[in-house]
């Protein structure tokens, strides 16, 4: 059995069932230590898939399981990094307090752990700053460190760098690759950027436009890490995937 398994998952926010389900017959498997990227047009339900795996919402039908256990509620084992830069942080706490928020160890151990993760995401010097004093990129680093410190089995990342400027975004992508290479955590990453998907993912799953969204194709990116976003190989993959995704984007009704 795969590490993460979604089997015949349907999700409908409308409980009366009068409108079409957002997700239907969704199947997904991710192996332990794999970096999987969900790619799809805006509003296709990518974030809902992450919310299902995180346990924030329950499927209307079908099963979601992680490590052979059915997902019933949120757990530190399935850590989420949100797209929103400000909302997920506790703005009345410093960087250090935010990162140590969920740790249940002794004070001394906590100090050591928090220090370690602050160093890991390059936030040294900003330990005692409040989120309002940090830049967007730094806030996302706090989120990343905070969830990484819980040592989750799975990292769920919902377009975490979408609200950052292009330069910061590229740096963060490089750093994420390094972190993943060091720790080999299972990551499910959601994005609507083909470049980002190709740079980060071992496996890219292209979703159809909603409603009734499901996985349309699955592509393996057979390139070595760390990947350079402007290398010829990456661009070749981007071109290959573009047709697939554009077809789905065209289906999204223009509002």
């Amino acid at each position, binding site marked *: 059995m795969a590490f993460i398994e979604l089997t015949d998952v349907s999700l409908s926010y409308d409980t009366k069932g009068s409108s079409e389900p957002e997700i239907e017959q969704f199947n997904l498997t991710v192996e332990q230590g794999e970096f999987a990227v969900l790619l799809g047009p805006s509003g296709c339900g990518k974030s809902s898939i992450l919310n299902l795996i995180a346990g924030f919402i329950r499927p209307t039908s079908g099963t979601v399981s992680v490590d052979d256990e059915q997902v019933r509620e949120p757990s530190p084992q399935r850590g989420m990094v*949100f797209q929103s830069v400000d909302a*997920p942080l506790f703005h009345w706490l410093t960087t250090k307090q935010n990162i140590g*928020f969920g740790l249940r160890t002794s004070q001394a151990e906590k100090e050591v752990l928090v220090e370690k993760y602050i160093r890991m995401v390059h936030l040294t010097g900003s330990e005692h700053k409040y989120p309002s004093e940090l830049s967007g990129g730094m806030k996302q680093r706090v989120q990343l460190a905070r969830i990484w410190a819980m040592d989750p089995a799975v990292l769920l990342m919902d377009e975490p760098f979408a609200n950052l400027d292009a330069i910061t975004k590229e740096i963060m992508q490089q750093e994420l690759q390094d972190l993943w290479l060091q720790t080999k955590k299972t990551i499910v990453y959601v994005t609507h950027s083909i470049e980002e998907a190709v740079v980060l993912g071992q496996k890219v799953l292209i979703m159809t436009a909603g409603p009734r969204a499901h996985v349309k194709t699955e592509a393996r990116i057979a390139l070595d890490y760390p990947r350079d976003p402007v290398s010829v190989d990456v661009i070749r993959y981007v071109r290959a995937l573009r047709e697939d995704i554009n077809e789905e984007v065209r289906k999204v009704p223009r509002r």
Partner: protein
Amino acid sequence: MPSESRKRVERMTEKEERSNMVRSQKLKATAGLLRRMWRNNRYLGTIMSIIILLGVWKLVAMSMPLFVPSALPTLRSMYELAAEGQLVEFTLVTLYRILVGWAIGVALGIPVGWLIAQSDLFKRIVDPYINFFRFIPPIIWVTVFLIWFGYNDLTRCALVAYATFMICVIHGTVGMITIPQEKTRAALNLGVKGWELFRRVKIPASLPEVFTGMRVAMTNSFMTIIAVEMLTASSGIGYLAWTSRLYFRLDYVFVSIITLGLAGLLTDSAFRMISKKYFRRFGVAID
């Protein structure tokens, strides 16, 4: 035209131009000075508005002297009342009633508001009463409270507390239900749930709205206490304003209004200062 007179005309225009230039330079300098003063002195606006107010007051008082006492005699009456010690005493008594009643109302109202947001059971049981009593002003309770608590400050404070309570309940609830979903989800994701979530995330995250509620309730307390003191008290600013009418001392009524306004201004400044100093990191932004 003979050249002599043309020259004279030219000379004159030249002179005029020069004096025009000097005048415009002077004007510019004055404007610059005024602009600098406006920029550098934060009280200039207040001073100007006071001068304008006194001017308008004077004009109105001159046009209908029977209905509006003029500014200077009013200020003199204010000084008289202050010198006798009555004004200070009444102000302190009124402020005391406001603060005690307000504090009780906040201490009860905010937690009830939070509980409504937190527990569906509590909400369903309590909400109908909140929405019923919300429309009943404190004044209508005066007789009832007088019988229950007696002719004393307990009654007066209780009425202020009642008015404060209703406002605080609503702001407490709104503060909690408007917390972004990502914040609570992030906490759940870190293994923090139930009462721990309530204590460590929901309460601090709701504080900006709570402070807004406290401030609105403070304004409301000032209004409530005056009405209460007019009806049932033998001290306080409301009492002063109400008894003065018997002797047609309109100037004393104006003194009451000015004193109350100043007391409100001071209380609000103190409240703002404390919020800014100790609660800024919670996102409490008052201004």
